[in-house]
């Protein structure tokens, strides 16, 4: 079935794998020289020091000198290093007599198969070393490595590295081989080789900045949060030292949300943190339906409560799903079908 979730990276073509190079090396070198020269000229024009002119300064200068109202960022005038603009491409893989350089050229995916051969060679080496150690009874005990901090390269990253298109099957085979290599007790020897194919994953919590509490005229601490769900937009202001009163768009919560489920959702963040009667809340919400508005206010209040609570509890809230934006929206209707999924009644004739 077709994917609903597609990252923008998946939609871009793998230019490196499409064919042999369209730009010669000499051309790229000339482009790099021109770029460096142009960078110094630009620095002189802007009155800055040519030696310490960074890429961000270049972007700002270009945006100032050539203002553009075009929507697509890729269509605006840009000045970047040639390696970013001209993507890496495979060099021509055969010499003047027509003979290919690499011995696996006729497999079609020479870099992928040579990589598999290399990795398997390392595996055999490790197994030989292990057998030697078992013969001498020096086998070290395998300590369980922390898998949570690192991830393997994604298929797209591997394709960019090899400059070749891969299928899902081939990618999974490569990852299985790497995992097998890592699982062996003496796999630490090939640590460097494995690190080429793994990436660090930072802890999720560090990505979000928690704002400090603000104080209003009466000296009561408060904080604001915004939330959205489907088409509803909500802003919530949570005050400290309260009695648990909630006001929505100037109306009391019992009158605005007659359904029990919506009120349960509003109280969910407070109930999760055991602070049901301690905070007052004033929110404004617009758009969406009954349940969407409740979900939007829930997200807004959870975000506002982050400032009142310790970091550990913020992590607990995140793991309970209170702080994630819900991306589910109404699916569009397609032509040739009656709805998003429902097809027209099938008639035999």
């Amino acid at each position, binding site marked *: 079935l077709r994917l*609903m979730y597609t990252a923008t990276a998946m939609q871009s073509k793998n230019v490196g794998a499409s064919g042999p190079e369209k730009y010669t090396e000499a051309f790229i070198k000339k482009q790099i020289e021109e770029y460096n020269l142009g960078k110094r000229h630009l620095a002189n024009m802007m009155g800055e020091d040519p030696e310490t002119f960074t890429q961000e300064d270049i972007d700002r200068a270009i945006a100032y000198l050539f203002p553009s109202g075009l929507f697509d960022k890729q269509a605006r005038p840009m000045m970047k290093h040639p390696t970013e603009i001209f993507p890496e491409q495979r060099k021509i893989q055969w010499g003047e007599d027509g003979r290919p350089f690499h011995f696996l050229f006729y497999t079609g995916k020479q870099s992928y198969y040579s990589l598999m051969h290399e990795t398997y060679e390392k595996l055999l080496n490790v197994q030989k070393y292990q057998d030697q150690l078992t013969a001498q009874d020096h086998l070290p005990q395998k300590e369980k490595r922390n898998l949570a901090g690192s991830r393997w390269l994604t298929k797209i990253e591997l394709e960019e590295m090899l400059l070749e298109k891969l299928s899902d099957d081939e990618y999974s085979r490569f990852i299985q081989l790497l995992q097998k290599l890592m699982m062996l007790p003496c796999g630490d020897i090939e640590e460097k080789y494995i690190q080429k194919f793994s990436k660090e994953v930072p802890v999720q919590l560090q990505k979000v900045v928690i704002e400090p509490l603000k104080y209003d005229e009466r000296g009561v601490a408060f904080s604001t949060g915004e939330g959205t769900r489907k088409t509803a937009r909500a802003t919530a202001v949570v005050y400290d030292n309260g009695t648990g009163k909630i006001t929505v768009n100037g109306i009391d919560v019992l009158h605005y949300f007659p359904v029990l489920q919506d009120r349960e959702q509003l109280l969910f963040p407070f109930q999760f943190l055991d602070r049901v009667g301690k905070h007052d809340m004033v929110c404004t919400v617009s758009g969406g339906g009954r349940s969407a508005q409740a979900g939007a206010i829930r997200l807004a209040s959870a975000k506002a409560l982050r400032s009142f609570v310790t970091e550990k509890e913020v992590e607990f809230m995140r793991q*309970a799903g209170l702080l994630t934006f819900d991306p589910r929206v109404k699916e569009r209707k397609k032509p040739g079908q009656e709805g998003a999924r429902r097809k027209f009644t099938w008639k035999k004739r």
Partner: protein
Amino acid sequence: RLSQVRGSRYNPSFLEPEVNKELYQKPWEELSEEEREKLEVKAVRPIKAAPPTVSSSVFSDPMISKFTNMMMKDGNKVLARSLMAQTLEAIKRKQLEKYHKAPEDEKETIECNPYIIFHQALKNCQPIIGLSSITKGGKTYQVPVPLKDNRKRFLAMKWLITECRENKNRRMLMPEKLSQELLQAFNNEGPIIKKKHVLHKMAEANRAYAHFRWW
């Protein structure tokens, strides 16, 4: 194997949220090895948003929400929820009536908590073994097959709801009929338990074809 998700708006790396408060209050030392690994993985990966039907309060129960969703017609969740609430109230009332009428020594055996009655009744209704139609050599045989937990729960709930919708008098309302059926199921009697026994007997009768199963 890398298989793309069947059309979820979330990235496949998102994990399910865990709403139960008690699990978060356990200190680090009490957790077993698997739970510690799970926690570490959770710390790194993004997590999906909690659905609107789920909440951390004592009143939200996943089984009851599932049953309410199955009772719902045309997306009318408000009506389904109110029917469920009325059913639980009716069960409580009937049990309290029985409690007050019973003599002293029997008072302890009467169960008044409607949630416990609901769960126990569902458990009693679940079939252990089911039939699946397998075509072999042109003929279709009914082969006895062990059922998964999800399938058992689904069958029990489906039988309850269809029973209440069809076999009732014109004037009787859904909550009353449902509470009656649940109490009967709790005591291992009633039409749904009979249906379960019939299914078991059919499976027993078709024992000869059990070797047709290949999974």
